[in-house]
């Protein structure tokens, strides 16, 4: 409980030290806690080992390569384990023909991946930071997304999965903090998936890899070390395009994805103390997204608040808001609120001002409820 509040403050400092010196192991503590628990949502169905997000992703990649001999992992620096260690041990285990470094060229990485996928392989590609995905934008939008459609289903690149770290990290500035998911949600033909925790990440990543459509998998880098929870060790998949109500409530629906959910959860917790019952939904898949679950929730609560780190204008919150207003107009008790990043490039020293933090969300919850 006090941990949640401590989580954010502590997390910032903890992440700062880990990211600045990658040799620092996760055992660096804060406030006397050896392990920082990720929010417990509902009950975990099974127990497993305590893993952080990058280990969970690493496990998923191990399983993917193990279970499908036609799968490959490649990108910049993946061979030694990757700048975030997500690909640690893969090259040693599966060999450098299946796990390899590529030249520094995102359009080549994705284009090569499309070709591999078109030959019935699983191409699990890494773009080192989502901020650098843009050289590959043409390959993603004009090629990957249209590959099946334009060929009349004679060809497809469904085996392509693009993994990329996104989001605020405390000190990332313009080019290590971006959340570009909205650009890709406007492209019919690809899927966009964002996990919120280690257990979710492993299952969603395996689903994304095995899905027969090209998927962009945005990994919240802030949670790579910070989020720890029990992750089942076996091979499991979580469904795409199914949102999850992670906390039930009756006064207002909150929708988010990725790292932002832990911030929203804290806001919900504080709101509860003031007698506001919040229903928190993890969208998980942004494209195609589960409108039905969100609609059902808003029919219950009559209020909606969306929160994402990406700039508010043209962000994916706008799509959710417009769709829900279309479906639930007469049920809504207040305008749909969006608490998001500012419409600026992601600033460094001003990050605390830029991000949609707990109190911004809490204030919006209250004003929406009191509309």
């Amino acid at each position, binding site marked *: 409980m006090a941990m949640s509040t401590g989580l954010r403050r502590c997390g910032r400092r903890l992440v700062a030290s880990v990211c600045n010196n990658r040799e620092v192991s996760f055992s660096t503590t804060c406030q006397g806690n050896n392990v920082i628990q990720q929010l417990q949502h509902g009950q975990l169905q099974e127990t497993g080992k305590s893993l952080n997000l990058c280990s969970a992703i690493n496990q998923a990649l191990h399983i993917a390569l193990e279970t499908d001999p036609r799968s490959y992992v490649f990108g910049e620096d993946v061979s030694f384990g990757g700048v975030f260690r997500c690909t640690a041990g893969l090259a040693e285990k599966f060999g450098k023909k299946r796990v390899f470094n590529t*030249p520094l060229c995102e359009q080549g990485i994705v284009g*090569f991946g499309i*070709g591999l996928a078109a030959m019935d392989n699983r191409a699990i590609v890494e773009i080192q930071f989502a901020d650098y995905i843009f050289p590959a934008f043409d390959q993603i939008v004009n090629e990957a997304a249209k590959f099946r459609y334009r060929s*009349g289903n004679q060809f497809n690149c469904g085996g392509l999965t693009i993994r990329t770290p996104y989001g605020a990290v405390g000190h990332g500035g313009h080019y290590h903090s971006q959340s570009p998911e909205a650009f890709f949600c406007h492209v019919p033909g690809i899927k966009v998936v964002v996990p919120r925790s280690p257990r979710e990440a492993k299952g969603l990543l395996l689903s994304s890899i095995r899905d027969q459509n090209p998927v962009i998998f945005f990994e919240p880098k802030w949670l790579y070390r910070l989020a720890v929870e029990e992750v089942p060790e076996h091979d499991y998949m979580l469904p795409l395009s199914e949102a999850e109500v992670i906390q039930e409530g009756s006064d207002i629906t909150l929708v988010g994805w990725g790292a932002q959910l832990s911030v929203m959860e804290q806001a919900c917790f504080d709101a509860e103390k003031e007698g506001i019952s919040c229903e928190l939904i993890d969208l998980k898949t942004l494209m195609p997204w589960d409108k039905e679950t969100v609609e059902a929730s808003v029919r219950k609560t009559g209020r909606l608040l969306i929160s994402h780190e990406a700039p508010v204008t043209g962000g994916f919150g706008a799509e959710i808001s417009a769709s829900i207003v279309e479906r639930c107009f007469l049920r809504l008790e207040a305008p749909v609120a969006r608490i998001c990043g500012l419409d600026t490039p992601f600033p460094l020293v001003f990050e605390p001002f830029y991000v949609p933090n707990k109190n911004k969300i809490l204030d919006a919850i209250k004003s929406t409820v009191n509309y």
Partner: protein
Amino acid sequence: MISPCLSSSNSDHGTLFTASLAKDLRVSGSVLENKPTLYTTRRFESIRPDQRSDVKYSANHKQFLDFPGGKVAFTHKMRFISESPEERIPCYRVLDDNGQLIECSSNVGVSKEIAVKMYSDMATLQTMDTIFYEAQRQGRVSFYVTTIGEEAINIASAAALTIDDFVVPQYREPGVLLWRGFTLQEFADQCFSNKGDDCRGRQMPVHYGSKKLNYFTVASTIASQLPHAVGVAYSLKMDGKDACAVTYFGDGGSSEGDFHAALNFAAVTEAPVIFICRNNGWAISTPTSDQFRSDGIAVRGEAYGVRSIRVDGNDTLAMYSAVRAAREMAICEQRPILVEALTYRVGHHSTSDDSTKYRPVDEIELWRSARDPINRFRKWIESNGWWSSDAESELRSNVRKQLLDAIQVAERTEKPPVVDIFTDVYDVPPSNLSEQEKWLRETVKKHPQDYPADVPL
């Protein structure tokens, strides 16, 4: 595994480059000119500049250092490498302008059967282009792109490949499909966007594709197919197939970033891919002098560590030989090869273009008549007694008739149904598309006059 196709002995410089191809070569001699030290029979081993142990250092270069990336000799003379070579890379040709075999030319030779099929397909392609171009002008087809002047590149390269080689085209290579067996009806169906189109009417005319013929679907985007071809080749490499990927692009396409990405990836991944550049002098209205200042495209191969050759693209036999050799090297040595075929785009860029606006009419005429690759090859096969003017008129009139029939059938064939708007966006249509289809059908029912009557609901 990959079929053994190199002799096992360690050869010296200057020997024939493969044992199997050796017997086909008319003249013995090094296929790799000027840089014999780059040749090796060692299979699967890259020949990287930083790993060459055979380089001799002259008296000037006694000292060297092991930088990351390998040994580099020092020099105390400051010398910039020229921006252009003393001599342009020469262009390989085997038939002269009159279709006579040049003496002492090296070429793999070709059987009568293949030669006659190559000629027939070139003539068929030319006839198809002429008739479909006309159909567009008459308003029967919305758009068309001809291959006039580049028939030899299309057909000869296709003939040099096997059906197992995957083709990743740009959009001016329908001849490769024709060679592989795509029917005139299938060409017509795609151009008329009817139900017979495998692409389900979703793309503009000439955007052909065929899974059964291992020919990836054409897209209008320029050069984006080049990195795909490298991934395709890597898959073939990992599967140990006796096959390669082949991709085509133009002089304009070589300026795109994807060209750089693809060549670099191909070299690093040691992928068996052949990059065939149709350098036809024009990218719509942009001449090559506005496109680049390098010695064409062939010179760039070395910059990426890719073996390359420049060929006379209007010489059917030279194209055939070069692509045969390229294929052999790509598969046996597991490496990319760059083939620059020099030619001329005789037709307009497309039916939306009038090239007389930016280039002289007599230049076009020169290439259309005096330098026509089809006539040139015809002279050669006729000199072998493999063709005659009777055969010619029979072929031309048969093909013409078949094409006109195909067009008539294509025009009458139903268009694909409205449901094909929504399928194949994903493997399974998501719920938002099901909703949109429902809504669309309602509005079509209400306002049928807004919608084309020939698209079934």
